[in-house]
């Protein structure tokens, strides 16, 4: 947890990451609010707020009396949202830094191709 963004948003993002990576599989049960609170060492009200973001987005759903589960199709839905934001969150900062250093777009494309080949 860092101070740059609201904690509930970071909790939601961490759960999203676990769904994208498959650590929390679709139709699998998600940890309880109290488990999230203990794990992240945060107030349960904050954990609840984070989880509710995902419930409202249809990523998690509640089964009364049992707990919360990952919705079917949640992984693809999250990946698609992240792809939409990829350009603004990753590409633009790279371009800004490249411009600062005088790296033009041809050089930048070559660098990316080279790194892609190495990995």
């Amino acid at each position, binding site marked *: 947890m860092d101070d740059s963004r609201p904690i509930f948003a970071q909790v939601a993002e961490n759960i999203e990451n676990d769904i994208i990576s498959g650590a929390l599989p679709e139709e699998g049960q998600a940890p309880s609010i*109290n488990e999230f609170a*203990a794990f992240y*060492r945060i107030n*349960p009200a*904050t954990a609840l707020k984070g989880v509710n973001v995902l419930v409202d987005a249809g990523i998690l759903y509640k089964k009364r009396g049992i707990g919360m589960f990952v919705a079917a199709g949640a992984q693809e839905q999250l990946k698609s949202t992240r792809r939409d934001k990829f350009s603004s969150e990753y590409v633009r900062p790279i371009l800004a830094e490249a411009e600062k250093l005088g790296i033009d777009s041809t050089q930048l494309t070559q660098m990316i191709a080279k790194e892609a080949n190495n990995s």
Partner: protein
Amino acid sequence: MTSTIEVNNLSKHFGKVKAVNDVSFTVAENKIYGLLGRNGAGKTTLMQLLTGQEFASSGTISLFGQSPVENAKVLQNTCFIKESQRYPEDFRPKDVFKTAPWFFANWDQEFAERLIADFRLPLDRRIKKLSRGQLSSIGVIVGLASRAPLTFFDEPYLGLDAVARQIFYDRLLEDYANHPRTVILSTHLIDEVANLLEHVLVIDDGNLLINEDAETLRNRATTVVGMKTAVEAFIGNREILHRDGIGGLSSVTVGGLSESERRDAHAAGLELSPVSLQQLIIQLTRTETKEFEASA
């Protein structure tokens, strides 16, 4: 929402000193509150007033809908853990844990024993022979195991090491989750407890400076860093919480910024960094800052 505490225009004067100065606030049921402020700000006096250990100079206090003064019904439901709790001369920790259940209806002996093991507290040693940290751990254990509907922790961990403090935070969260209750935690270690708090009260010089949701407070300030001219152009006539500078660089803390303001700042080549709860409170309660601003 039910409020556990209601305070109206509360003041406490010691001679000319206004320890608590016309303070009004409510505390909602089953939330964890942080009561923060500098040494001598009035935190302990406020808690003593709330628990009926001091008489108010003026104003009213209601706990669970009643006055706490000489009120057994209210005080049974209230646990106040003080920094400098005194015990009878020949007491040993085991005597404390034998007598504490008399005062608290919800006392959980099993939980107390688990905490005693967690803190490695020697039960048979005379209290005056205990280390400062061990003494603090007695208070922490009583505060947690009493499960009082309203629990005050006033600087509960003088001398507790980092491991023991973490145990305290973890057990508090865990037990609070299973047995919700109203907790008021007064501390100087703001960074350590920031994420545990749901609501924050900041007292400065007897006045209630901040009474706000912790999450709201967290987004209240941002530090803008960059070339002096660019920073000045960006902040315009925003309210400035703090200002620092070195050479041609400037670092200014201002109120929360919107998404578009953040983009503008980035476009102007400025760096934005978050302000932690602790930093925010330091900046709001630091005397030099106020003087500096007053003279600026």
